[in-house]
């Protein structure tokens, strides 16, 4: 039997990047506990549209926790209170009838609010553009498994590669630092032989780009790894630090 609950939403509304934002209160009634958080917002938006009001803008795409498009801060927690879940995978059964839920966009100087809960996450793309790739000059396709990679290493690289780039690490960091994101991206390539040739250049240029974009500095608060929907560990930040220090002080890359 489906249960329904009523909740009060305090949602951040902001008309544009330069506008002043404010909280608006909405009542979401008869919400099925089987709904996802975004489906609940859909219900509220339909109501708003029917009443001739402007719906709440929020980002979403896959709605199955793999694309990294969704995300908002729910009662102070990026992607809501549940561990290892994106906002689209959070269910209303995690809330109680009568709850008041504060919904804010991911906040950081580097993330502009475009509208309401929609933010501009392109600074994360810029970090990738600075070196989060390998250069593969085309030619005959190499044999699969021609380079042996220990299972353990492949797993660790895969753990880092699980990052969906949602930005929850930045949102949860008391310093709005992007080190978990950058650390994961540098790690996933640093661990594999294919990533080694460009490792020094990559570490230096990705870290410098990250710094220029206005993210804060990591102070090892560990909030990011606790909030990351993919549970990426700060050991990847340590690996980035290692890669960066090695590249800075022991490689010929300037």
């Amino acid at each position, binding site marked *: 039997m489906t249960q329904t609950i009523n909740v009060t939403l*305090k949602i951040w509304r902001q008309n544009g990047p330069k506008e002043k934002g404010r909280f608006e209160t909405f009542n979401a009634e008869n919400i099925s506990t089987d709904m996802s958080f975004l489906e609940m917002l859909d219900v509220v938006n339909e109501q708003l549209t029917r009443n001739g009001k402007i719906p709440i803008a929020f980002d979403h795409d896959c709605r199955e926790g793999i694309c990294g498009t969704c995300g908002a801060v729910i009662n*102070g927690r990026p992607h809501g209170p549940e561990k290892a879940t994106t906002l689209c995978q959070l269910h209303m059964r995690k809330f109680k009838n009568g709850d008041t839920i504060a919904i*804010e966009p991911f*906040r950081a100087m580097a993330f502009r609010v475009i509208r309401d809960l929609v933010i501009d996450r392109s600074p994360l793309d810029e970090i990738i553009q600075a070196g989060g790739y390998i250069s593969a000059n085309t030619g005959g396709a190499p044999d699969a498994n021609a380079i042996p990679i220990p299972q353990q290493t492949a797993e660790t690289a895969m753990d880092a590669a699980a990052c969906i780039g949602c930005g929850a690490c930045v949102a949860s960091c008391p310093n709005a630092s992007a080190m978990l994101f950058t650390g994961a991206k540098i790690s996933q390539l640093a661990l594999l032989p294919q990533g080694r040739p460009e490792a020094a250049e990559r570490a230096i240029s990705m870290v410098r780009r990250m710094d220029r974009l206005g*993210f804060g500095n990591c102070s*090892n608060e560990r909030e990011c790894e606790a909030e990351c929907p993919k549970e990426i560990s*700060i*050991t990847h930040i*340590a690996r980035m630090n290692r890669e960066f220090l090695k590249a800075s002080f022991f490689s010929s890359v*300037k």
Partner: protein
Amino acid sequence: MNWFINSLGSSIGKKLMMAITGLSFCGFLMAHLAGNLTLYGGRDAFNAYAEHLHSLGILLNFAEIGLLSLALIHILTGLYLFWQNFRSRPVRYAVNKSAGGRTIGSVTMPYTGVFLICFVVFHLLNFHFVDKTQTTIYDIVDTAFSNLPYTLIYILAMVIVAIHVSHGLWSAFQTIGANHLKYMPFVQVASIVLALVFAIGFGFLPIYIAFNL
């Protein structure tokens, strides 16, 4: 030289400076504590230790300059990081909630840091920049701690040192990239243990002196 400035000036470079200077201070505090333990040996033991230390002459001056430079790097970098981090989120959250990563040590790091700068100045004025021709260092310490407010300030400062170290030590290891599956749990426990050693080791001395135990 440009590459050097650029590397140290980066976010990771600044953290590296905090880590290395911080680790040096942990080392200094251990040596300082070892020396101070001679207070339990009474007036002669402590005065002998002080005399021995001062007989190092010029070496001691070098050590002092070294410590002062480390302090300047640690303080200035720390303040700059604090300001940058403050600036990186111009619109704050209305609701703040921890997911369980933060500790009292990590949350209070900049504040305990600023408190400690003030304390170090106070401490040097008490025991370092004083005329020691008419008296011995033991007597200075003895008089200072017969004053209750002094005793309390010192005990409080030692609790704060412990809080600062509890986050600082493991954090320094993480920063220099020494986060190892096998050793990190040990480093984290060691941070708490060292914090307790400082709190109890230093913190009990004023009590011992004040109550003439």
